[in-house]
């Protein structure tokens, strides 16, 4: 018996020692890392904050793009000259039929070559501009450099395709040009909104683009949402794809097609990205996306009104619509009012959030956060509410008495993050067991193995 006891004692001592060691290790590591950590965030912040600096980036890209555009235009002109010699006039009506843009039919048949030349130049410029825009946007958004090499080879490739074009490709190329110009215009507009009109690259492109491109850009600009432009570009691309006869030999044609499709899609993605960025409200002068209120805005207003009327204006730290998360109304509540507000959200007649959908914690290194997603089956409405708690003393009231479903999720948060929930009937380490040393989901967690 006593031997057993000794063993128990020894075990306990070993665990205690191990815990102390782990703590010491962690402390040492923290102390060592502090200077490094303080430097790291700065590096991270620079690209985000340096929105004006993106202008210069765009400038560089602009120069590059201009040079590239010039090269592409030259190549295209050469190709066209060759085409002219071979007799291109026959293809013109087909080309016009293929291009559904409003600007095209206005052009006389006699000006065909000039028009074609101008168009090709416009296309090249627009393409380059779009690439530059994308790049600038990525720079402004703090995106990676890995995507830059991906963007750069695109332009020469496009130029190659243009230069290599045969006579019978012209019609298709034109159709592609329309799609591209439109997509580029949409991307451009989005980028301009983002950067607050900081780039000048848009103007040369528009000028050099000639009447045709201008008209198209205007038409695109008229479209209220980027989605419309996107749809148009896609439709044009599709029409082109469908219009293309199957007996046309593959090769350049296929390539051009693929490029056109890829461009249209890239523009769509860029537009979506820009939209998301604008939605975040980070960019100054972001117009359209910001101005349009979320469909959930009335709900948020209602919640805030009801809460402030009943609990005072001191309860909420912040409230907003989270556009990234399907427009869910989000409330950030003050630490002291957390439990009271939870009760209020559930039992108030107008709110009635009777269902706890999710509860979890996150370690943000400066603080801990609890995220709760609630749903009201009565009103068919969601709300997210969050609370920030002290990382060194992560203690908060348990929501288990309000929603029994918070029981295990709180145990999980306690187990993996070390957040203590007061008033919880059975707070235990639900996943890892009571012997486990440390809280794995904390960012400074050091794995500890007793046997090592």
């Amino acid at each position, binding site marked *: 018996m006593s031997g057993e006891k000794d063993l128990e004692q020894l075990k306990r001592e070993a665990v205690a020692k191990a815990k102390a060691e782990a703590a010491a290790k962690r402390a040492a590591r923290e102390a060592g890392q502090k200077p490094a950590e303080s430097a790291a965030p700065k590096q991270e912040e620079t690209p985000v904050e340096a929105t004006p600096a993106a202008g210069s980036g765009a400038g560089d890209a602009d120069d590059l793009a201009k040079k590239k555009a010039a090269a592409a235009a030259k190549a295209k002109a050469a190709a066209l000259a060759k085409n002219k010699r071979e007799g291109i006039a026959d293809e013109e009506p087909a080309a016009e039929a293929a291009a559904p843009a409003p600007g095209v039919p206005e052009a006389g048949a006699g000006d065909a070559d000039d028009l074609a030349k101008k168009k090709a130049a416009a296309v090249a410029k627009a393409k380059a501009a779009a690439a530059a825009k994308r790049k600038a946007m990525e720079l402004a958004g703090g995106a990676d450099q*890995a995507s830059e090499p991906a963007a750069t080879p695109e332009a020469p490739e496009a130029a190659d395709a243009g230069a290599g074009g045969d006579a019978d490709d012209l019609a298709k190329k034109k159709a592609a040009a329309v799609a591209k110009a439109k997509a580029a215009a949409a991307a451009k507009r989005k980028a301009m909104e983002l950067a607050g009109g900081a780039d000048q690259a848009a103007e040369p492109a528009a000028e050099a683009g000639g009447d045709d491109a201008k008209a198209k850009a205007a038409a695109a600009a008229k479209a209220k949402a980027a989605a419309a432009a996107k749809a148009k570009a896609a439709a044009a691309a599709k029409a082109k794809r469908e219009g293309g006869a199957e007996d046309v030999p593959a090769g350049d044609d296929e390539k051009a097609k693929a490029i056109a499709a890829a461009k249209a899609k890239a523009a769509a993605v860029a537009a*979506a990205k820009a939209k998301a960025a604008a939605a975040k409200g980070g960019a100054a002068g972001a117009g359209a996306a910001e101005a349009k209120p979320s469909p959930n805005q009335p709900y948020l207003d209602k919640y805030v009104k009801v809460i402030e009327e009943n609990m005072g204006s001191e309860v909420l730290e912040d409230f907003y619509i989270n556009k*990234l998360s399907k427009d869910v109304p989000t409330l950030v509540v003050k630490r002291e009012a957390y439990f009271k507000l939870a009760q209020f959200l559930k039992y108030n007649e107008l709110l009635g959030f009777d269902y706890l959908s999710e509860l979890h914690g996150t370690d943000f290194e400066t603080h801990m956060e609890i*995220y709760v997603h609630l749903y009201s089956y009565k009103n068919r409405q969601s709300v997210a509410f969050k609370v920030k708690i002290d990382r060194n003393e992560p203690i908060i009231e348990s929501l288990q008495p309000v*929603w029994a479903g918070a029981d295990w999720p709180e145990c*999980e948060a306690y187990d993996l993050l070390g957040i203590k929930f007061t008033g919880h009937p059975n707070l235990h380490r639900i996943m890892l067991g009571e012997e486990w040393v440390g809280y794995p*989901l904390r960012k400074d967690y050091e794995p500890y193995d007793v046997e090592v």
Partner: protein
Amino acid sequence: MIKTEEMMLNVGPQHPSTHGVFRLVVKLDGEIITEAQPVIGYLHRGTEKLAENLQYTQIIPYTDRMDYLSAMTNNYVICHAVETMMGIEIPERADFLRVIAMELGRVASHLVWWGTYLLDLGATSPFIYAFREREMIINMLNELSGGRLTFNYMRVGGVKWDAPEGWIQKVKEFIPYMREQLAGYHSLVTGNEIFLNRVKGIGQYTKEDALQYSLSGVNLRCTGVKWDLRKDEPYSIYNRFDFDVPVQESGDAWARYQCRMAEIEESLKILEQAAEQFPEEGEILAKVPKIIKAPKGEAFVRIESPRGEIGCYIYSDGKKEPYRLKFRRPSFYNLQILPKLLKGENIANMIAILGAIDIVLGEVDG
């Protein structure tokens, strides 16, 4: 005077009827359960911690291993979360492939539940029938994705593989076959008196209890709450299809049985329409960046898995890995009500109650 001593019974963690490594510590007074304490965590792999060092695409295989009976919905929920944050539009063909894959998975999952639940109750042959049909689904999904259980099929922006030649035809042919088999199941089991006596009035709870305990899916619908995220917060292309949400009022194991069987039929309806409307051609992957980076911020999305509401929370600091990833796992939430249901029950009903909740331990433990 006859006196019974309190007895502690340890069920699991290795026990055929717990459907995985799950332990239940039960205190008995004679045959009556006085207390039941679930013990979980045997299968905890720390998916959320691992994910913090993985790129979004690399996380997808880990989701296969959570709810391994319905890996397609798990694949979808993380892709959907990232796509929601990035504002990516999914090509139509990819959406169709996703819906078909998910609904096939739902049918397969309910089949496993049906077979194993009856096995729990002592009926051996339904298990063989259920697995015969499930095998056909698994083979179809295998042709689609290359995997039988862990598909790793979906990607941010679409799906990894296009449907092979003639695959949609196979799905179309499977639907009437499955309907015929389903009718057979009903005549074999549903009207059986022994079966009815074992499930009626067992593990009963009210709508208020269900909401209070954060139950979702069939466990909620069996109490009369008509709630299905496919219908009420439509995602993907579910709003294009015509289907019902089966609801029962009684809230017992029998109600849950009826709901699940009816859901197989509804899934077949969706599959029928999706196979009919399946686009002839098109892209299967949207144009997404090579390295996927969700924008800075947080998002929580939830979808309907066979077991209930599966959710995915992402907090991104703009890097290629998530800063924090959290799955709202329906089995984990649904299992919480078990101690309440078992208290005061007869020991003979214990497995019937546990089985009716329909848990997958890979999902409970995360």
